[in-house]
């Protein structure tokens, strides 16, 4: 299994002939089977961080490695869940989930077995032959998560996966993700601007500054989560009522708010 490592990563974009620094010396390690969330104001480059692990973009300086190997391009060892789902509209639920396994050359029997597992994991039974446009946003994102999980990837990259969902669906999906992560732990990098989501889901939360994005602080939620037995609560609202949860949520909120006020001219 794999760890993600950002080593002095800087990313600049050329805009109208002017260089603009999007990310400045990012150092971050996501340990094997650790769930790390990155939160930050919009435009801080948190998605760019994730995209560099996915291999869609590359650092201007520094290194991004997964399992000690430099990322050179996208691949099925690093499955991505996109905010806008990015399902293939002309493929059924089954065929969307099947594509990655077909690419790997997984034999048909094993493939079908694993697809069935993924469908069960994401409670998609009965929708195998549906097309994405026939499904609600929440269901589409379940398919996208199933498509990622079925690959049994070393690393799971989630780019604001619940950002396009309505509040109700979002909560359900967050609970589901906790359930799945408990059953089937992965190395996860999770990007969001929702603080509660980050605290609820992650072992550690990396807080980023405004552009140019730097890592401001990293908060270890895991110890509290274990000590306070968050995982014994089925429902997100029960966790959110806990003193320990509120403490970290407020802490991160303040941290982000300082960012906004502190940098305004």
């Amino acid at each position: 299994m794999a760890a993600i490592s950002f080593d002095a990563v800087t990313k600049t974009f050329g805009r109208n002939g002017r260089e603009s620094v999007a990310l400045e010396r990012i150092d971050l390690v996501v340990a094997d089977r650790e769930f790390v969330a990155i939160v930050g104001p919009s435009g801080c480059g948190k998605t760019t961080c994730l995209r560099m692990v996915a291999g869609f973009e590359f650092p201007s300086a520094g290194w991004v490695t997964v399992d000690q190997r430099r990322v050179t391009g996208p691949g099925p060892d690093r499955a991505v869940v996109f905010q806008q789902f990015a399902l293939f509209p002309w493929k059924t639920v089954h065929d969307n989930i099947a594509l990655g396994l077909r690419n790997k050359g997984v034999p048909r029997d094993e493939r079908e077995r694993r697809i069935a597992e993924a469908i069960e994991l994401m409670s998609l039974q009965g929708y195998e032959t549906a097309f994405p446009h026939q499904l609600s946003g929440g269901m589409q994102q379940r398919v996208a998560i199933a498509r990622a999980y079925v690959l049994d990837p070393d690393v799971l990259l989630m780019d604001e996966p619940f950002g396009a969902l309505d509040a109700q669906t979002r909560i359900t999906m967050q609970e589901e993700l906790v359930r799945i992560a408990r059953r089937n732990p992965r190395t996860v990098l999770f990007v969001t601007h929702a603080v509660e989501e980050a605290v609820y889901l992650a072992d550690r939360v990396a807080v980023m500054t405004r552009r140019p994005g730097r890592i401001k602080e990293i908060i270890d939620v895991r110890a509290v989560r274990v000590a306070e037995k968050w995982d014994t609560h089925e429902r997100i609202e029960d966790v959110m009522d806990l003193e320990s949860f509120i403490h970290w949520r407020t802490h991160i909120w303040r941290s982000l708010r300082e960012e906004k006020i502190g940098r305004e001219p």
Partner: protein
Amino acid sequence: MTARLTRAETVLYGVAGLAAFLGVWSALSLSGAVPHQFLPAPHEVAARFVQLATTPFAGATLGAHLASSALRFAYGFLLGAAIGIPLGLLMGWFRVLDEIVSPAFDALRFIAPIAWVPFAALWFGTGIGGPIMIIFAGAFPPCLINAYRGARHVSRPLIEAAEMLGTGHLRIIVEVLLPASTASIVAGLRVAAGLGWQSLIGAELIVASTGVGFMMVQAQLNISTTTVMSAMVAIGMVGFLIDVALRGLEAAVRRRGLVA
């Protein structure tokens, strides 16, 4: 745009427009405003049309001439699609191929298909190859351009999704670019069919020994304006039918939700 019309209104206005067209035509022809040998009246053309359907002219009935034209069209059109669509998709995916093909293609595509007639005649004589080549020259560019544009406009996240799933080049082209470009490709096929069919008649005016274009040349030699007009009507009708068929395909594509 102004307000929508009901279906009945649409039909009514369509019929009215057609009637007005035929009315003006009849009036011009029957009143003697235009000399009769220059412009036959609609009813004479209609009568000749019916006659040509059963009586051979220039060696075959109108139907047989049309069939031979349609066959050439089918070959040229399918050849244009069979080469243009895959090549367009490949160019949309492989930058290098795009850079290699585009300059030559852009230089050639503004040459009207008819301009190839001398070479078509030289290379293929009066055989079927010449007309096919002319139709191909008309049908190929829209097929290529639309497949290429379709492939280039596939949404970035879909391509990224395919790549992160480890999809190879060929499979991305066949299972992502092609379905995502279907609407654009079908629109290209419609343009290609129109250009191809128009080019065919021009080509047959010169190189063929059967076909509607050939028939028109023979009619011209016989100064039979009603025969020429009948052939024109037939060309228009078949062209319209081809377009209806492709519009049907377009609608089917939309219904199946294949539009990204």
